[in-house]
């Protein structure tokens, strides 16, 4: 297997593992450096979210941050906007070492962040949102007229003088709300605006408008940190690119237009952690069709998806957040209602509703462990038996002893640590919480397991264990449908892979026929690259 690094970036191969950093010639952008991060480190219990980030942003440039899910982009944004404080490393803001104790401090310094979920108050007006937290006041009264006037000026500066400052934000479309967020940034006299996937909420033609605004901002000397999964956007709007992976900067200040896609992609994915996947069975142990999905459609989420999972087979779905993969899984599971299409288990069409799916032998480990799967304050055993406690009950009376025993058996096979099933789930680490969620479906004859991001927030050791568990289940004839935004996970674990982009399956192949770069190209490509090379 040829290495991506060797084929595209010879200088890093020479430098070795210790210095994978690539510096492009620094004269590509003229402005002064407004922000410089050196060796930034931020750890959370069990996770090293930032592990040596370098970043240099100049006035008047659009600096793109690229990285897979979990690369540390969100944490980096939160450090810059004052939500988190770094453990070590230097933040230099306009030539001075700086620490932002809280979001207000960062705003005051001139760093504004536009989050993906816009943080606007829907029932306040455009002007009130733009000046939220620093309203013009006199004698305790808000000076509405002055605020409206200034908001109008700012909106005009953004090229959107047509938005009335008095309009309720709720009544604006997503693109309009985004402009209000930017107006808020400008009302703070921001010198650096961080945009977290701003195009994700926009329709295609609105993205052009966003870019026009960004160009006007940068022409006024404002620096923009632009985060996006879409490479073609980065090519269009970006000046320089910094790539993050596993909390480290793997490439800094690459020219956004000329760096080959392969190079960028390999910087995002180059292994530093070895994933350990269990062997695939040598014989094709897969049995009869277990799940058949035909033409499943939910408008705005996914369209015309057909797939099948056989007994004993692991089918992986690769795709980014927003590709419709989680929604697809929830629809198959009956948690969302399909507009059209059918879901069959063992050849029988499923009635809508989770209850029917569970009775037919499906189980799901949802994406958001804490909010969708666990009763955090309840003991482990009750979480393990959440879907099955009725089966151990007699005449409606629960059998706690039996439940504890079953949960303990699961805890043993999954090597749950600690193995005390009376502990509240809250006290477990992320990996062990995930084992509880998966373990829930090992009880009582689950035939098809739907796993949505099963290893998110799970440390490396626990990951390997989870992979073993999933493979062993398949060896026992359980069908597994796995969704993950980590391409190596899908490729390493699944027997067959579906690639989803923008709500459609764009490729289906045996896992052995695909490599990571091909899948990433497919997952990230714009419409121009449809039908990318195998």
């Amino acid at each position, binding site marked *: 297997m040829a290495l991506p690094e060797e084929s595209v970036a010879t200088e890093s191969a020479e430098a070795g593992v210790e210095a994978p950093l690539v510096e492009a010639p620094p004269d590509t952008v003229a402005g002064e450096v407004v922000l410089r991060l050196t060796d930034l480190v931020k750890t959370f219990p069990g996770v090293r979210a930032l592990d040596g980030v370098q970043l240099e942003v100049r006035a008047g440039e659009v600096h793109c941050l690229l990285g897979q899910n979990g690369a540390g982009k969100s944490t980096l944004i939160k450090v810059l906007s004052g939500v988190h404080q770094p453990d070590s490393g230097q933040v230099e803001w306009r030539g001075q070492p700086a620490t932002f104790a809280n979001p207000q401090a960062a705003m005051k310094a001139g760093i504004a962040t536009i989050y993906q979920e816009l943080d606007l108050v829907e029932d306040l007006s455009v002007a009130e949102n733009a000046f939220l937290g620093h309203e013009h006041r006199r004698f305790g009264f808000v000076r509405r007229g002055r605020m409206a006037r200034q908001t109008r000026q700012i909106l005009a500066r953004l090229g959107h003088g047509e938005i009335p400052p008095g309009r309720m934000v709720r009544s604006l479309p997503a693109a309009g709300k985004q402009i209000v967020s930017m107006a808020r940034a400008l009302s703070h006299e921001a010198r650096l605006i961080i945009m977290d996937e701003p195009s994700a909420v926009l329709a295609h033609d609105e993205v052009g408008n966003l870019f026009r605004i960004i160009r006007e901002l940068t022409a006024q000397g404002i620096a923009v940190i632009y985060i996006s999964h879409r490479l073609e956007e980065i090519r269009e709007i970006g000046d320089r690119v910094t790539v993050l992976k596993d909390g480290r900067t793997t490439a800094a200040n690459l020219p956004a237009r000329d760096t080959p896609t392969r190079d960028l992609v390999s910087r995002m994915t180059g292994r530093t952690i070895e994933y350990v996947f269990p062997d695939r069975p040598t014989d094709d142990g897969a049995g009869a069709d277990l799940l058949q999905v035909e033409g499943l459609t939910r408008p705005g989420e996914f369209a015309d998806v057909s797939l099948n999972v056989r007994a004993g087979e692991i089918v992986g779905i690769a795709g980014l957040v927003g590709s419709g993969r989680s929604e697809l899984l929830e629809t198959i599971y009956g948690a969302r209602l399909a507009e059209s299409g059918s879901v069959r288990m063992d050849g029988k069409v499923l009635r809508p509703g989770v209850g029917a799916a569970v009775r037919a032998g499906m189980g799901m480990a949802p994406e958001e462990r804490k909010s969708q799967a666990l009763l955090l304050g309840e003991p482990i055993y009750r979480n393990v038996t959440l879907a099955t406690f009725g089966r151990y009950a007699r005449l409606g*009376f629960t059998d706690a002893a039996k439940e504890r025993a079953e949960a303990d058996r699961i*805890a043993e096979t999954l090597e749950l640590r600690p193995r005390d099933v009376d502990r509240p789930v809250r006290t477990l680490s992320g990996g062990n919480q995930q084992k509880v969620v998966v373990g829930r479906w090992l009880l009582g004859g689950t035939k098809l397991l739907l796993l949505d991001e099963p290893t998110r927030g799970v440390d490396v050791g626990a990951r390997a264990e989870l992979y073993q568990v999933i493979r062993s289940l398949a060896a026992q004839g359980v069908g597994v449908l796995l969704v993950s935004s980590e391409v*190596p996970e899908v490729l390493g674990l699944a027997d067959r892979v579906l690639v989803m982009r923008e709500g459609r399956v764009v490729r289906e192949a045996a896992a052995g026929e695909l490599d990571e770069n091909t899948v990433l190209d497919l997952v990230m490509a714009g419409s121009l690259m449809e039908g990318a090379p195998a």
Partner: protein
Amino acid sequence: MSDATPTPTATPERPQLPAQSPPVDPAETAVASDKATGTGRLSWWRGDGGDGAKRNLGLIGVLAALIVVGAVTKPDLYGDPTWVWNNVLAILQLASVVGVVTVGMTFVIIGGGIDLSVGAIVALAGVWCTTVATQSYGAGGMIFTALVVGICVGLVNGVLISYGRLVPFIATLAMLVAARGLAASISNKQTQVSSSTFINDIAARKVLGIPILVYILGAVVVAGWVLLNRTTFGRRTIAVGGNPEAARLAGINVRRHTMLLYALSGLCCGIAAIMLTSQATSAQAAMANLYELDAIAAAIIGGTLLSGGRGTIVGSLLGVIIFATITNLFAINGLSIEAQNMVKGGIIVAAVLVQQFQFKSVTRLLARNRVTTA
């Protein structure tokens, strides 16, 4: 970096999971649970929430403090064992009607809801079962009517909330207004006297020296405890209130269960209506006024989390008894009801403050644990 390949690396051996759900050998189960709990098979009556029990100890402490206050202020009365025994019975009798309502309320709150209409349901059930027409069917007909009215009104609440997707606060607030209106209309704003000696005897009589009302409270509390801690219904209640999304994705019918919780609360109101009618030997539309506040306050003092998912029946019972004891204490000291209400308000605030403090310290402790084990 030439050893880093994007293809998966193989592991030499793959541990095999045991087959799913093998037939359970009873001996094995016992061994397994021994290993799991370290204490062997758990007693059937043991509660499951360790910290819930601790909180209840705190409530018993409060109760003891109230008794000490009583003993200090009225040493002559508290020196007389017969008086003390009769006073205890008086307190329990005072607590009995609200106590029954509180058991239903506790279920609703643990299940993530709130029922503001309980007082109105008690009044409606009371009025309905004492109409001339209903009384003509005798005591059995009256009891049946009260229970059915309670369940049906509760079901209406439940349907509006779970299938009509109304916020529980709004739906039951509307029911509070509507049910009292209906009660006033049925009774023609008159006080309806119960002519059934059977009904009237419930409150008047004692068995083995203890009022029947106290037995009823005891029976409802025991039934509620068993229902919450030992049945699938109770388990679903905790799941639905603790994390409705997780419950739904585990295959629990969250809507149907929510509906049933309000029906259960209605049933408790029906029982309370009979008790209250019996006490007054009559019913009227204004009876059981503000019971909803007493019941909610008692449940919260008892440690029920207003956001759902946590709470105990014993705690709620202690909450009701604490309130009744305060009332009793003020009565024997000849103090005004106004002062009494102020003290009750203070106790509610204190109880919630204490809970928050406990909760915070517990989570801090857990966070520390997590860091050390990570």
